[in-house]
């Protein structure tokens, strides 16, 4: 105790001496909220509007900081580890933060906010919001899931037409669907588009999201969905899953070595594929949310005529393929001073009408975690005024969905951060390994990472 107070005193005196004068705190209860910056300005505006409405309603004040994605990730992790935390963190993709910190008992249980809406929330949202706490030895809700997103296919319809193909003819199974675009490249090259590629396959990235998400979908398409199950167990020993992983690596690396993927895809970061897609360096991309389209919404021809969004085909065995959803929303780090206000704000945010209003204002880049919203408000499925949203909502809300693996076991986040799958692809492409050798190596590493996480 003595230690703490002395430290606090030193910290305090230095703080007083050096901190820039901030606006004095208002008399009412002020909660500090960190929010991730949207990919389109409308998302930030929508969040501010929700905050304003809450402030009017409650008389409390929200002290809001908006930060870019990476900055928020790092600030959040530093804050949680040092104990100097905001009252609420609102994040699009908190999967690098939540699983491990819930495990370490560094987050507030928000079950009392989530439970009242339990029946309304989608099963996937509930899964994405609950995490295992190794101290209490049980799962609980640590995320208040407001919004969800899936990855649809994005393509330049004008390029497909120019090549003489019709998207209606696109096959209904996964591998065949990808293969459909290969002759599009051949045809366009014959027409003189010398440097055009068919597929924006993020085969190995240096960023945290795209490559891992893509690989997970390939696994699902090849019947390897159960690589990690809800109980947190890893099933790399299952021959069917190993087979699915090998077939995924084989297919993806072959697309690359056959020359249907831009060669620089091997050194892309998470934004590069989007940029190259916008420049029409390739025809088709598989990527999270509607951001590739929304980024170009001011370009009327591109958004309304040229760009096409498509949902998922079936798995390779012909069965319906679920989309893997990520969830965004609010979470409260342990040590927050105004937990009551943070929870009250999130409870307010969870009201279907508030959630709906907020996500609509954000241009529908995210879908609500309460599925009934999209059925009741025609805006979501309206194809007359928006060419893409309905397809996206069908995939993310109305079709079959599964949760991300991250919530099942915190080890998965480390697998993703290490880019184990990207490394497997690089092993095949650059070092001439066979797909099965590359998967043996990757599985070995995954098993090692998982072995350090022991439940119960």
């Amino acid at each position, binding site marked *: 105790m003595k230690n703490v107070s002395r430290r606090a005193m030193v910290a305090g005196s230095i703080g007083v001496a050096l901190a820039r004068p901030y606006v004095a705190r208002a008399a009412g209860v002020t909660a500090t909220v960190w929010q991730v910056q949207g990919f389109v300005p409308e998302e930030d505006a929508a969040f501010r509007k929700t905050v304003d409405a809450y402030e009017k309603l409650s008389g409390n004040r929200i002290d809001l900081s908006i930060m870019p994605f990476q900055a928020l990730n790092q600030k959040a992790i530093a804050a949680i580890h040092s104990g100097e935390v905001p009252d609420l963190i609102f994040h699009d993709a908190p999967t690098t933060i939540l699983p491990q*910190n819930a495990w370490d008992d560094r987050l507030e249980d928000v079950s009392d906010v989530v439970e009242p809406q339990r029946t309304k929330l989608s099963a996937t949202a509930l899964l994405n919001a609950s995490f295992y706490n190794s101290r209490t030895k049980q799962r609980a809700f640590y995320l208040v899931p407001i919004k969800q997103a899936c990855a649809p296919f994005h393509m330049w319809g004008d390029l497909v037409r120019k090549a003489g193909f019709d998207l209606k003819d696109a096959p209904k199974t996964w591998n065949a669907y990808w293969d459909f675009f290969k002759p599009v490249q051949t045809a366009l090259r014959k027409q003189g588009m010398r440097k055009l590629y068919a597929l924006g396959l993020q085969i190995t990235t240096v960023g945290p999201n795209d490559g891992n998400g893509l690989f997970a979908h390939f696994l699902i398409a090849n019947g390897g969905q159960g690589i990690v199950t809800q109980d947190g167990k890893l099933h790399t020993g299952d021959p069917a899953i190993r087979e699915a992983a090998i077939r995924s690596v084989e297919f993806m690396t072959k697309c690359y070595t056959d020359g249907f993927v831009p060669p*620089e895809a091997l050194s892309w970061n998470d934004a590069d594929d989007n940029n190259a897609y916008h420049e029409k360096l390739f025809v088709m991309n598989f990527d999270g949310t509607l951001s590739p389209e929304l980024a170009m919404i001011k370009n009327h021809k591109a958004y309304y005529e040229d760009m096409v969004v498509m949902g998922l085909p079936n798995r390779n065995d012909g069965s319906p393929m679920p989309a893997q959803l990520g969830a965004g929303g609010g979470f409260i780090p342990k040590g927050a001073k105004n937990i009551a206000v943070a929870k009250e704000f999130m409870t307010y945010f969870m009201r279907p009408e508030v959630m709906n209003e907020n996500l609509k204002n954000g241009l529908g880049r995210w879908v609500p975690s309460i599925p009934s919203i999209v059925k009741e408000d025609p805006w979501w499925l309206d194809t007359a005024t928006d060419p893409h949203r309905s397809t996206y909502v069908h995939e993310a809300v109305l079709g079959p969905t599964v949760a991300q693996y991250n919530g099942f076991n915190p080890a998965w986040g480390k697998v993703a951060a290490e880019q184990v799958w990207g490394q497997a692809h690089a092993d095949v492409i650059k070092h001439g390994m066979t797909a099965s050798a590359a998967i043996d190596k990757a599985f070995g590493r995954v098993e090692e990472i998982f072995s350090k996480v022991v439940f119960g």
Partner: protein
Amino acid sequence: MGRALVREWPPAWRPRGSERAWIAAFLIPYVAVFVAFMAYPVAFGLWMGRSPALYAELVRDPKFLPTVLNTLIYTGVGVNVTMFGAILLSGYFMDRSRWIKALLVLFMLPWALPAIPAFLAWHWMLVGHWGFMNSLLDKVFGIEGPIWFNDYWLALGSNIVATIWKWMPFWTLIFLAGRMAIPQDIYDAADVDGAVGVSRFAYVTFPLLGNLYLICTLLSTLWLVGDFTTVFFVSGGAPARTTEVLATYGTHLAFDSGDPPLGSAAMLSILPLLIPLAILLIRRLRSREVQL
């Protein structure tokens, strides 16, 4: 003059009463900043990275040893090429003709240019198959350039070249200052002995600048080992995070994998190499005081 400088500096002399208070007053700002922003974070960092289990975990990470190796190659090649180039170029810039003086002004630009814009420019110059470098190769020489960041050696090499580009001007300036302190009569004497060109550099200039060269090499090694910005912006670790150095790797572990203690441990792991270098640096700095 020479003799005055050989003596121990400063001459031992015991300050009295009020002078002690003055000394304290002059030193307090530095000591306070040092304790609050250096000693405490260092101690905290060591405390964070105290668990031996962290290092066992690091060694098992297949990315760790390659990253250490990258750091050594990056620093080793980067520092030595920079230093050797700088000492040679400082001779070139001793020429006082007007256009060489003007060239020196231009040559210093990379140092004055902030690192982020500079390395962004390098990244964009080499990125993909349509970066400026490949466009230039294509348009001017008709050669199809490689995808620079797809290849381990090319990507690592790009990082090294960019860092040399950025830091060589500064060290050239330091050596230029060193060379200007060499009295002309030494060279006159060397001229009489017929030492010109390479032999003049090898037998006159270099021995005189030897200690400075060593000090600068040590300093720049210590600065470059922890370099984050170059690698982060130029190759970004591509391809597949194989060109990362400890600084980017540790940050990655801390914030992308969400494990700050492991990140700290990754960065601390190079300390056994750096502390001897720092001690050597300090010894060289002191020994210079009695050496002419």
